[in-house]
């Protein structure tokens, strides 16, 4: 039971972990990550597309990364080169992702709602991951889907990059005090372009997990997960490891709610609210104020 619960939690957490890891990189460089939702949706679709045409889910993952990077670059060029407002552009990226996935879903699969079944990971576990999770072999089953261990590693990997590599040092510098970084010859714009590209790639991989786990793409399948990842990132105080813990916590709450379904103990809607309420509480400074990177969202002088 506990193992099944843990397995379920991890399954739910994987897309959050990917997206929160990506969001942390972008925001630490000073670029607001309202775009995670759009990156995930794009990733889910391009993964399904790639997997469908190649027959290999790995090609799907590569396509997701490519799709995420392309969308990241659109966002980066608009906000960095053209100084578009990051919030407006972030919202637009999400709308664009909805539009583009719907349009090409119609073109490629002639459907307004979902793709046909595509090759995916986690063979044997159907679209209903929950049912499988409750079966005995749940935990080993996690490793049928290689994106699960990769997702679990994404957070420590991002932490390592941010805190232990020159690129990470530059990302943190550029997000706090771009002018100071520039006086030392750090190419502020280039660092930000790379950070947004990384966030696109990671969040899109989270989307790919969704599509490849369920063996299909459905319209709007990111379903707000990008915003939950954003909430986790804020709750984690822009630190990847703590954001990862927040992701796991949110996922555990969801898993608990699924387990309690039918018992009427707790309405699912209130479990859904948890991440958002906690984020607001964190922003109010009631539980140790979450401090954003100093240059986040600031327009350059």
């Amino acid at each position, binding site marked *: 039971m506990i193992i099944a619960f843990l397995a379920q939690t991890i399954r739910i957490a994987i897309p959050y972990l990917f997206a929160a890891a990506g969001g942390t990189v972008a925001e630490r460089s000073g670029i607001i990550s309202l775009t995670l939702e759009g990156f995930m949706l794009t990733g889910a679709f391009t993964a399904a597309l790639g997997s469908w045409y190649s027959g290999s889910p790995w090609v799907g993952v590569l396509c997701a990364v490519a799709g995420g990077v392309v969308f990241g670059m659109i966002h980066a060029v608009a906000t960095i080169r053209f100084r578009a407002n990051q919030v407006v552009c972030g919202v637009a990226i999400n709308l664009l992702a909805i539009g583009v996935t719907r349009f090409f879903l119609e073109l490629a699969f002639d459907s307004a709602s979902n793709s046909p079944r595509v090759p995916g990971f986690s063979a044997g576990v159907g679209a209903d991951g929950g049912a499988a999770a409750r079966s005995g072999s749940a935990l080993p089953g996690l490793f049928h889907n290689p994106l699960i261990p990769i997702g679990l590693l994404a957070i420590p990997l991002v932490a390592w990059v941010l805190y232990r590599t*020159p690129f990470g040092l530059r990302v943190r510098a550029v997000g706090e*005090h771009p*002018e100071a970084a520039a*006086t030392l*010859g750090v190419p502020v714009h280039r660092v930000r372009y790379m950070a947004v590209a990384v966030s696109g790639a990671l969040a899109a991989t989270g989307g790919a997990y969704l599509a490849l786990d369920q063996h299909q793409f459905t319209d709007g399948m990111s379903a707000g997960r990008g915003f939950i990842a954003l909430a986790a990132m804020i709750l984690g105080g822009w630190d990847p490891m703590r954001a990862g813990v927040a992701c796991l916590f949110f996922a555990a709450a969801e898993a608990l709610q699924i387990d309690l379904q039918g018992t009427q103990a707790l309405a699912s809607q209130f479990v859904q609210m948890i991440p958002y309420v906690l984020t607001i509480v964190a922003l109010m400074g009631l539980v140790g104020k979450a401090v954003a990177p100093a240059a986040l969202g600031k327009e350059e002088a």
Partner: protein
Amino acid sequence: MSGTGKRPSDLRSDGLREAGAGQRPDPLREAAATGGLREAARTGEADSSQLALRMSGIWKSYAAVRANRGASLEVGVGEIHALVGENGAGKSTLMRMLAGLFPPDAGRIAVNGRDVTGWSAASAIRAGVGMVHQHFMLIPTLTIAENVVLGREPMRGLALDMAKALIEVRSVAEQFGFTLNVRERVRDLSVGEAQRVEILKALFRGARMLILDEPTAVLSPPEVQELWRVLRSLRADGGTIILITHKLDEVMDVSDHITVLRHGETVATMLTTNATPAGIARAMVARDVVLVSVPATLPAGAAPPARPPLPAAEGASRRRAERAASLTLLQVQSLTVKGSRREPRVRDLSLTVSPGEILGIAGVEGNGQTELVEAIAGLRPVASGSITLGDHDITALHVHRRAALGLAHIPEDRHRRGLILDYSVADNLILGRQASFAHHPGGTFDRRRVLENARERIARFDIRPVDPALPARALSGGNQQKIVVAREMGGDFSVLLAAQPTRGVDVGAIEFIHAQLRAARDAGKAILLVSAELAEILALADRVAVMYGGRIVGLMSRAEASVDRIGKLMTGALEGAAVPA
């Protein structure tokens, strides 16, 4: 124009010529002239091949400000060179171009004989030029070591080799006798330590030429001595140091050579051994004739009148002083105001202003004047002390309540506070009194009254163009300032705070605003005038207070005030015991 070997004694007439000189000088001629100047000053001690730096004919403008107007600078290898001048003289701009932060609009920069005009920050660093900025360029959330190695990180494989970084940073720190825990976060450092990190950053990159922008502004005296020790040891090592400052004691203390900038131009250069504090002070603070409030039509080239105090004016001044003794309109008692980092910016300051009096506050900007005025206006919280307006204690009152009690305020920055640039002239003319133009609070404006008010003020204060619907942004600086003056001085008030009232405005507007201030004084208003322009203080004030380090370090009547005396008080150099450590 300015590149002739002039003595400080020539400066008054030089200021005059500046006022008339509008066109650009020929850069080539400028360069030649500075060369000559250099030789004259150095008296053949070194020829130009040994120059570490030669900047000539440098021009640079920001949006509307001309920061450098043909400035030049020459620095020999292995010397400490003081670059002095008042705030806004263009020192920092000149040095930022040297550090590769942006290119000059015109002019050449040569380092060690190589033309490097318009190079990048990265190339400047590679060539051994390092700059310690006035506002520290440190990332507070990173450790000392991370700040130092940023952009030049030692690697091990793909990773940052933090162990090696720590060792390298420590070794450079030890080499120059810095005691720093390099793993500490910068946000936890004192300002003195933060500055050492800045210097460390430059030294870590192998800087052979170190530029320090107002390095002592934030240091305590022992920290200053420590800095001098470091700079001298760098010089002994063959390093070249350029020190931006406006403190004359420091200049005399530590430098070998001095270059004085004023209004973006190089106006004097001298060997420190040949210089006197008085001479430097005059070179720094000498003013254009226009600021001494003589008719703007004065023919270029004529010497400015010394403005002898007229007997009649002196009599009036005495009468005012007598009246002042009997009552005060504005009283500030033991006021302490803190800055954004909770450091005291105004320290236990007291002053009074009487009806029919202008109290002028002189001082180099950044010595607490802004905070003082904002605290009186209600825009900044008071840490301790009290402010009294007439019979009312206004220390805790909201801005609009103070206004209702008769406090008017010309803020120092019209673009930030004084005007809403995208609002029309008419709408700007009601800012602060907008409630009284609505039919009922929160209700519709009475457009007719708003327009009438605008027409009346525009006419009375000669604001041009005469179009109340024009956005304030579209007006010239002088006319923008007239909007502020018309709004604040056009109605009923008893006390006026006038902060930098003529900054960045044209000659005609200066005359006009000065006349308004005098008229208000004569009508019995109490005026607190804060100005970085010494000439403005001398032209208007009945009493002069000098602010330094958040305190009033000198208070005198107009008759006792002189450029020399105030100038030295401003730089914290004179009247020994009176200057707090």
